[in-house]
């Protein structure tokens, strides 16, 4: 198996209610709009199929893909299965929110070829769900997982959010207990952040919610992490854990700097040395009928590619493959950023082995600052760069983008 291969991301930007912390590209759900949106998705997907694009992984994310009405849901999944469901496809994930997935939709998905479902539980505390502005109650999640298992899904993932205002150690323990009970193969553990423009951030500014101080969040995060480890999960990325062999191939591909195409409003793409997104505007997307406007088109360049590799790989438990990096850079890692690495190693934030450079437990907690330090300390003059800037897989010829500027 090649470490990286192109992925396909499909964005379904609809939610019935907006969670208080959410700053994703999301629109309010209206059945009629969703139907037309799926029409446009199918057109964009058809064009991609026509290019000869064949993904190794598919990920349908949102928003809440499972909010789609059964008919649209069926049309989308069946199309994907027919177009891309060949032997190349190794993993196909759909995000589902507990409460919007039912037996009918689960069976449609199963039949189409979906083999992995990721659910947003966030927490099992009623109080937590309320601050987070989640629609579902604590009981629904277990029900949804049971239903999915019954429908034949073996690969299940569950998201947890850590550090919500008012969260206690007891609440973390309760979440851990529920996770053990449900027993998904994969768990994502995200720190709550207060993004500008979200309801939660407005409440914070208005003094109506009191964020937990950072050290407390870290204490809770450590508790959650060690609880999950005790339950047999291992961290493979800064915020993702799984049982052996249960990594999300699709997400791993991002971090290994593999290429991917994204369809749908606001979807991000990386192919042929460039990154771009579709314009994030549901109305415009529908009107564009499968040819959405590309925005933020960016040629990454040789240095940019190395920088990305550095910061993406440090998110992984396995870290940066030094030999591979040096080969691409045409210079030794030490020559490029030895001083910064020494400092960070000295501060106990990175470990440098013979083969890899990795974050320590503590390093993961302050990873952004570690990466900034490293990024800032890089001297690319040293690198002898050969100009290979594209994704690390050789994307099929047909998938190279025509950049509509």
């Amino acid at each position, binding site marked *: 198996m090649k470490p990286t291969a192109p992925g396909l991301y499909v964005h379904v930007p609809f939610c019935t209610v907006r969670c208080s912390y959410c700053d994703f590209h999301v629109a309010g759900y209206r059945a009629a709009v969703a139907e037309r949106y799926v029409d446009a998705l199918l057109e964009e997907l058809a064009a991609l199929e026509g290019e000869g694009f064949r993904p190794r992984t598919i990920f349908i994310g949102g928003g809440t893909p499972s909010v789609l009405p059964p008919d649209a849901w069926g049309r989308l999944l069946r199309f994907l299965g027919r177009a891309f469901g060949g032997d190349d496809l190794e993993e196909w994930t759909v995000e589902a929110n507990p409460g919007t997935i039912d037996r009918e939709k689960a069976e449609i998905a199963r039949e189409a070829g979906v083999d992995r479902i990721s659910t947003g539980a966030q927490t099992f505390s009623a109080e937590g769900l309320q601050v987070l502005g989640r629609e579902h109650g604590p009981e629904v999640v277990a029900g949804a997982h049971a239903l999915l298992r019954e429908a034949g899904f073996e690969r299940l993932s569950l998201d947890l959010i850590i550090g919500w205002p008012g969260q206690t150690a007891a609440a973390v323990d309760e979440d851990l207990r529920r996770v053990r009970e449900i027993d998904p193969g994969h768990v994502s553990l995200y720190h709550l952040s207060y993004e500008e423009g979200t309801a939660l951030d407005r409440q914070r500014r208005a003094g109506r919610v009191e964020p937990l101080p950072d050290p407390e969040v870290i204490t809770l995060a450590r508790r959650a992490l060690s609880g999950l480890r005790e339950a047999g999960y291992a961290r493979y990325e800064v915020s993702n854990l799984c049982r052996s062999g249960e990594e999300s191939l699709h997400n791993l591909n991002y971090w290994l700097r593999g290429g991917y195409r994204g369809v749908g409003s606001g979807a991000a793409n990386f192919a042929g040395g460039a990154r771009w997104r579709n314009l994030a505007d549901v109305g415009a997307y529908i009107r564009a009928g499968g040819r959405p406007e590309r925005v933020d088109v960016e040629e990454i360049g040789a240095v940019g590619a190395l920088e990305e590799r550095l910061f993406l790989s440090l998110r992984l438990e396995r870290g940066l493959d030094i030999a591979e990096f040096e080969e691409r850079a045409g210079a030794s890692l030490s020559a490029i950023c030895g001083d910064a690495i020494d400092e960070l190693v000295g501060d106990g934030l990175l470990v440098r082995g013979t083969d890899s450079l990795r974050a320590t437990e503590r390093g993961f907690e302050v990873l*952004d600052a570690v990466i900034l330090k490293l990024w800032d300390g890089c001297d690319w003059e040293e690198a002898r760069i050969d100009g290979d800037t594209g994704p690390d897989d050789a994307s099929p010829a047909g998938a190279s983008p025509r950049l509509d500027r």
Partner: protein
Amino acid sequence: MSDATPPIPQERIRNFSIIAHIDHGKSTLADRLLLRTGTITEREFRNQMLDEMDLEQERGITIKAKAVRMIHTAEDGLTYQLNLIDTPGHVDFNYEVSRSLAACQGALLVVDAAQGIEAQTVANAFLAIEHDLEIIPVLNKIDLPAARPDEVKEELQSTFGFRPGESIAASAKTGVGTDEILETVVTLVPPPTGARDVPLRASIIDSHYDTYRGVIVYVCVKEGRLRAGDEILFMQKQSKHLVDEVGIFSPGMKPVDALEAGEVGYIVASIKTIHDVSIGDTVTTRVAGATEPLPGFKNPQPMVFCGMYPADNTDFESLRSALERLWLNDSSFTFQPETSDALGFGFRCGFLGLLHMEITQERIERESGLDLVQTAPTVTYEILRKDGELFKIESPADLPDAMHIEEIREPMVTANLIVPSEFIGATMRLMEEKRGDLQKTEYLSPTRVQLTYEAPLQEIIIDFYDKLKSSTRGYGTLDYQFSRYRKGDLVKLNILVGGDPVDALSIMVHRSVSDRRGRQMLRRLKKVIPQHLFQIPLQAAIGAKVIARMNIGALSKNVTAKCYGGDISRKRKLLEKQKEGKKRMKQVGRVNIPQDAFMAVLRLDDEGE
């Protein structure tokens, strides 16, 4: 009013300044006079019209003196040329008042009828008396319900000897008294005396830089006349120029045929280099000019110094030209290059006080668009070395090793405080805390007292004004002048960040308060320096002895959890932005210190204690 009007004979020219304590209404009274004489129309009018700088309007204070020519027909039916100079009230800008008075024969001494005589009323009135001017007391703001004109008249009599009948009751707000003021100026203020048919002698009183027309020089013509087409000579600089235009302020720049003895106006002469101009220089004609220059101004001696550095080190040269340009318009500050380990290349700048410092910094930032980092202000100290050498230092960094020092002497001032008598006790306690020695107590009226102290300048400029206000419920006012250098028990307080001394954070303090100051500074730094990936020890030390310590804990959490496909570009941009932000910080050892930190330690109040 324009060059078309027939020239007005010298005996019908009146030059006068408006002087007062801060906020007693000088600029508002000037507005009133401008309107009344038709110099400006109601349509052109805005409040405190002569406060042209945005900064002046925003802060509601006058920073620079401003001259305006008005034409007025008096009760005798004759037309007079009235040249008014509005002056600033704040003590820092006192030299502007002296300079204005030098161009005048009279002064309107404005006193707020509710507040009464305050510290700068006294200081400015004595300046006018020294210049031998005709002083017309004006009781302003009599429209206020709190006005107490009779008591204030009594204060005027006991302080300066003005008879009650001599002062004019006025309101710059309602216009009451305006005509009486104009008439009194016409009858009491003598005309200027300089002869017109002699070689030109004009003194340069100010200037500003105009991108298109070069340096525009403001002059007060003492003798002779000046016109467009004249070839002129700046006697001290020995630079020669051809005059393109002469004009007056009315209040905007307005060309005239000639500036005659006794008049104030401007010269445009394509002066491209600012080095050709020096305030106080004498202008004469190149041919058949005067041989003796006028007595120059004595430039005020800056007493407060701070470092000014460009936030971005590559802007050093831009900062230099910004300082040079501003200096044309304010020759009372000084600057010379200095370097700092923490801040790189910058300038040590001297000012007349803290407000002057603040205003200058803001003007530079506005007029040049540069971002500045400023270090804590310090006064000058006189150092007597063991080997007998005596010299002054303008920066704590220049203090020699303790083993070479015999004495450190600090500048002392004579401080005049005027307070209502009920606050004498509180004021005395404050002055004791500030190491002041009481020298004199005088009652201006049964309820108002003037206390004269000798006190260290350092104590008077830093963190004093607010305390005086709170000790006297807002009524106390202060004026001070330098008196002498006196030996003091002074030490240099060094700040160490991450174990490294930060030169730009050193300050001089009296030993008795060094512990407290040290702790205050560390507390401030702790607030402004962001957490790093490691713990940062902060220390305050005198010599090798650490007198206070504190830690900035290591960053506990900084991680963006979610990073799905689309986030990679966003994440890159975020990193690039943060990297830019880091560039603007100053690095000391491994610690990045934000620019604010250098300013934050300026504020030394007791917050948090």
